[in-house]
């Protein structure tokens, strides 16, 4: 038996040496070292309250990132309109709430609008439009519509509005948005691994020709994944709006959260998690871990007293780093090609 375990070990090292160049291994090691040292030296890092804060920050970006993972896995790169879809949803929700339609109806209304927004983008992408350009245009369109709808003003609604439980409630000591993040993460992972739809996402993403040959056109797939992404960003928008009981188109713009632009943060999360941007490789679990990781690093830097400049720089470095590692790994290993 000991013999077989050593064979396994040898195989593992052999595979590691074959698939990953020393450069990649050194890069990853340095990265982990910096992370551990930073965490060890940050004051108040390992307190329950701080970990809760990290999870809460991760939830907002993470839910959107899980939605975007479906798009990325299906080989449609990413949507540059995540932030604007959220802006459109938040305005729709707040307008409906302030008109007194109640939480359930407003929720439904917002979701329908988000689905329509996703379906339009998905249709254009599926017909062969470049995802980046289509969603860049859609971003301008949605932002314009939501500014026009709200007259560029803050739309607020009165408490109690029946949505506090989503915005600021908590369960077992965890904020409800974090619980929603965990549930969505598990559900998304289940869908991707165990349902035929999930497997089709991988199929279309990794080999479009094979997908077409087996009857899974990118058209219907693009519409479905874009709707999923839009619904996820609408959910975040609703939770956010329920917390502050107001809405403005700029809530998700540059001043939001971790000092970057929300769309880019979401894309960063997907990339840092280690999903292949070309599609077909990755999982929503990776995106969730990416979200927690980014928010941990951000939190650590805040505790060390860094301003927004270094923090944005750190996120940028993480993205570029993950791209480079990914590309180098892909070049090194013959199995992926």
């Amino acid at each position, binding site marked *: 038996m000991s013999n077989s375990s050593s064979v396994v070990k040898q195989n593992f090292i052999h595979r590691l040496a074959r698939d990953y160049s020393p450069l990649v291994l050194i890069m990853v090691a340095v990265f982990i070292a910096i992370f551990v040292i930073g965490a060890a030296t940050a004051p108040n890092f390992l307190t329950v309250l701080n970990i809760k804060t990290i999870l809460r920050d991760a939830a907002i970006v993470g839910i959107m990132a899980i939605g975007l993972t479906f798009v990325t896995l299906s080989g449609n790169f990413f949507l540059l309109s995540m932030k604007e879809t959220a802006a459109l949803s938040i305005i729709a929700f707040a307008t409906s709430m302030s008109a007194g339609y109640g939480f359930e109806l407003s929720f439904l209304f917002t979701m329908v609008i988000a689905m329509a927004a996703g379906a339009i983008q998905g249709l254009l992408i599926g017909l062969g*439009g470049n995802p980046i350009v289509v969603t860049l245009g859609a971003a301008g369109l949605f932002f314009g519509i939501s*500014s026009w709808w709200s007259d560029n003003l803050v739309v607020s609604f009165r408490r109690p509005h029946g949505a506090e439980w989503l915005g600021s409630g908590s369960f077992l000591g965890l904020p409800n948005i974090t619980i929603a993040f965990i549930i969505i993460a598990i559900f998304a992972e289940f869908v991707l691994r165990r349902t035929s739809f999930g497997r089709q996402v991988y199929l279309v993403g990794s080999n479009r020709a094979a997908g077409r040959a087996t009857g899974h056109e990118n058209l219907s797939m693009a519409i479905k994944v874009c709707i999923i992404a839009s619904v996820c960003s609408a959910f975040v928008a609703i939770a956010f709006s329920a917390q502050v009981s107001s809405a403005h188109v700029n809530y998700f713009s540059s001043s939001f959260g971790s000092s970057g632009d929300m769309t880019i943060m979401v894309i960063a999360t997907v990339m840092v998690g280690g999903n292949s941007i070309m599609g077909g490789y990755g999982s929503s679990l990776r995106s969730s871990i990416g979200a927690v990781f980014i928010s941990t690093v951000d939190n650590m830097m805040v505790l060390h007293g860094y301003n927004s400049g270094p923090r944005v720089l750190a996120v940028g470095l993480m993205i570029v780093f993950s791209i480079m590692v990914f590309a180098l790994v892909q070049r090194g290993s013959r199995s992926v090609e």
Partner: protein
Amino acid sequence: MFNKVKNWISDNPDLSFAILLSICVYAYFGLTNELFPTHRTGFAIMERFAVLGLVGLALTLCIIAGEIDLSIGSNAALAAVITVRFTDSLGAPSALLIALLVSTSIGAIQGYFIAYLRVRAIVLTVGTLMLLRGVALFAAEEKTVMLTDFRVPDFISTKMLWYFSPASLLVILMFIIVGLFMGYTRFGREIYAIGGARKEAIAAGISLKRPMIIVFAISGLCAGLGGGIIGLRSGTAQALGLQYVLLAGTVAAFIGGVSIMGGKGGVIGAAIGTLTVNFLNTGLVFNVTPAFMVQLYLGILLIVVIMFQTGSRVFDENQRRKQILADADNLAKQLTKRKQFLKERPG
């Protein structure tokens, strides 16, 4: 004469569409607003052209090479911050030179890594978008940087020949140089080659590195010059500003006739596309439209152009598929005929 025009139109359908569109937009605003067709408005349009034209040019080149540079706004913002910060101590020309050096080398490095890692540019540039924002925040120390001496902004927007300023003349010169470079040098033709038919170009012995580095270096240079001009003209710069140029520049590039598949379009198209966007922009401002409506119109315009392009491509593909099927049918028929002929042949 008429025949010549007709031939030219059928040779350059995209360009003539762009010209037609720009004339239509100009005519619409010219007819609805009497202040629009004056040389003062023309000057304002050219001033906008000085910045947006450069971004449109940069994106046009990138799309010709089959890639998109998403980091262009961040690069421009970084250049603006550097220019404004150093103008007081070093003087405007050397500050601008430093900014251009920085932005061009950033572009070249991006191009090198895109070719070396063999990743798509959108993947890498979405990372550098964030990275450069961080660098710009660093450079600006997270404040809005400002000039104290306002002689430079005054000089850079002096009116010359009714329509032009030093800034817009510089940009026009840049357009001419890049146009000549793209049209008449080997390096320029290589950029077209790797955009339109990358595999074939590589098979023919063009290395991916050189054209990529050149394209992204020019893109960085244009972004830097645009950022520098806007920083010097307004006398202020923000690290997180200038993100809107990406949408406007992309719209300009697509109106100018580039195809997302690469290898199509040119500098003249970029100029006309940007002018169209500027007509729209300025005209909407003249008709007292809020700024966000401009974004809405630009978004619609981009989606319409994309729909048009995609639709024509799908149509072409369908036609080709039908043609192939018909050819195959014909071939099958001929084969059966021949078989029958062989069977019936005695002996």
